[in-house]
């Protein structure tokens, strides 16, 4: 595909203009995922007519509205179950799901683990801002300990989900996590995720200055981005330090968020296996029924 197309042309080509302006606040990380997705689609040369973008409820879940393709904006947390049905009835569609950390691992945690376990051949892009953004900054299952949220006013005491680690342990075919302000890695990961057979996850750490930053003394965008930068580390580096580093280095690293590609395999998707099963069943029946249907 043409590498030459610029951002303006790309937006012209892929944005659903009737939905603009977007609901996103100034400095919200979510919007970047839109450009990355456009770029990935452009570079892969995919046909938007053959793509379905599904989502749940949340700021992040508004993304499919801005993509000029079929969009299924469902109920809070349920998008993966809807997407399973979309794919079941037409496995030829490329299905991409956008979800938030709360959407995917709070109310939708059960659907998340089962879509991964079933190995439904879809790509999930989770925009993790470690908070319930849309509803005004309530604590999420991903909020780090100590986070101040409207529903954790004295500091969050709960342990946090590591979404990528969770997906990896469920055997997802592709798992990667990047801060949303890394310009090229998210695009590459979205491309790889779409092309990988089986359940694929791209987790993008996406700052929410409005509902997270403000309350956690990271109000200005620069500060929030610096926090992301200071608190994330490439997985390879992390492992190196944990294996060979000094105690001091280890202590400094242990609570950082690992970023990178954590899993990249090929796994026969559920519907591919299903199709094979159907073909065998039909062949058996045809034999039983004497060749003719």
């Amino acid at each position, binding site marked *: 595909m043409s590498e030459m197309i610029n951002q303006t042309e790309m937006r012209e080509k892929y944005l*659903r203009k*009737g*939905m603009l302006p977007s609901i996103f606040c100034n400095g919200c990380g979510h919007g970047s995922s839109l450009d990355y997705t456009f770029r990935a689609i452009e570079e892969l040369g995919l046909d*938007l*007519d*053959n793509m*379905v973008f*599904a989502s749940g409820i949340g700021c992040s879940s508004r993304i*499919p*509205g801005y993509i*000029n*393709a*079929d*969009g*299924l*904006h*469902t*109920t809070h947390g*349920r998008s993966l*179950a*809807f*997407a*399973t*049905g*979309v*794919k*079941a*009835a*037409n*496995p*030829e*569609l490329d299905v991409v799901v956008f979800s938030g950390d709360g959407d995917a691992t709070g109310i939708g945690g*059960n*659907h998340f683990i*089962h879509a991964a376990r*079933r190995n439904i051949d879809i790509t999930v892009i989770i925009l993790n801002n470690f908070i319930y953004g849309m509803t005004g900054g309530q604590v999420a299952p991903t909020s780090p300990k100590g986070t101040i949220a409207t529903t954790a006013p004295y500091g969050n005491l709960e342990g946090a989900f590591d979404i990528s680690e969770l997906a990896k342990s469920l055997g997802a075919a592709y798992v990667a996590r990047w801060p949303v302000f890394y310009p090229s890695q998210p695009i590459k990961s979205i491309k790889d995720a779409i092309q990988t057979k089986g359940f694929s996850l791209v987790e993008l750490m996406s700052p929410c200055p409005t509902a997270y930053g403000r309350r956690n003394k990271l109000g200005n965008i620069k500060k929030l981005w610096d926090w992301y930068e200071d608190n994330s580390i490439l997985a390879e580096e992390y492992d190196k330090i944990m294996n060979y580093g000094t105690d001091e280095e280890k202590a400094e690293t242990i609570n950082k968020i690992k970023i990178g590609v954590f899993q990249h395999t090929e796994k026969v998707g559920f*519907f591919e296996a*299903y*199709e094979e*099963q*159907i073909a065998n*069943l*039909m062949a058996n*029946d045809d034999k039983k*029924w004497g060749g003719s*249907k």
Partner: protein
Amino acid sequence: MRYELDPVRVRKILGNKKQFIMGDMAIAYGGLLAGVGFFGGYPITPASEVAEGMARMLPRAGGTFIQMEDEIASMAAIIGAAWSGTKTMTATSGPGFSLMMENYGYAIMTETPCVIANVQRTGPSTGQPTQGAQGDMLQTRWGSHGDMMAIALCPSTVQECLDMTIEAFNLSEKYRHPVVLLADGEVGHLREKVVIPDVDEMELIERIEATVDKDKFIPYSESQTNPGSKVPDFPTFGSGYRSYVTGLTHNDMGFPATDKQPDHERLINRLVSKITDDREKLTDVEEIELEDAEIVFVTYGASARPAESAVRMARAKGIKAGMLRLKLVWPFPEKAIYELSKKVSKIIVPEMSLGQMVHPVREFAAKDCEVIVAPKVGGVMHLPVELLAYLEEGSQ
């Protein structure tokens, strides 16, 4: 679409034209005959046999069966699959139906055709899993938050389990609305003779797909193919219409209009009136001994059977008893009830609950007609003699 049901295979899988089967299995048969391409469900007594039948038969006919992680997901998956262009179905009972309410509302709001077979039991909560009851008559009508209408059918026989499942698909395709088959555990687990209709003995209705130019398509307004119809044309995913489907209040183009009062009012009124405009056309009742009746049952589902026996026994004793059986319970047959109530002095509503449908019956009956419930709870059916006692008492 890749997974299309092969009707020739369906016939062969189903086998003999006349069979002796369970109500639940007849529901699965009906689904296959209607052309269901996707079934997503979660096990629950007394509805599990529907899923089990589908799991065995559907893949062999070219459709997809998935046991989902719960009923919330089942409902979600059948809606998603409907948007990919196939007919879809799930089956459940009380607790599962309660879980489905969230996405039942979503199906109504997004005008998604799909069928929910609810083989009812009682509650609240887990209640009596292995006993039949009629616990969801009103949840079907009012279960989602906000304003809504419902379409629901009530089979009294195993044959009706089959026929009404086909009818449920037809209505869901026609109105782009989830349709509930409100069976009950009694009829679901009953074994009776069924006759499988031949192709020329059954009518199948398919949703009207969008065909207008893509830049002229209006996804959430009146039909552009069928002028005057309040049911919009269906833009199947992958067909290039690039439509946006949302449970938020949306304008005619499908874009969120959450703070716009006129948009919400127009949308909700269309969603409800596309069904209620046809209320009388949809009314489907069976009349038994009504010509000169003075005291009558208004019944539905399994309870219609002991009620009919009671009517026959009462007639033998010279009591002018009759019965009106509601085959389609929602949208409620308001006019049929009103007209009946003007001719009789008393209406008795036998229900396997403390009384649910008695409420709309009372709402639409004429003021001077007495309306009472004949309740039976605990997971057993009324005995004909128990219902006869109501007729005897009422006729004195």
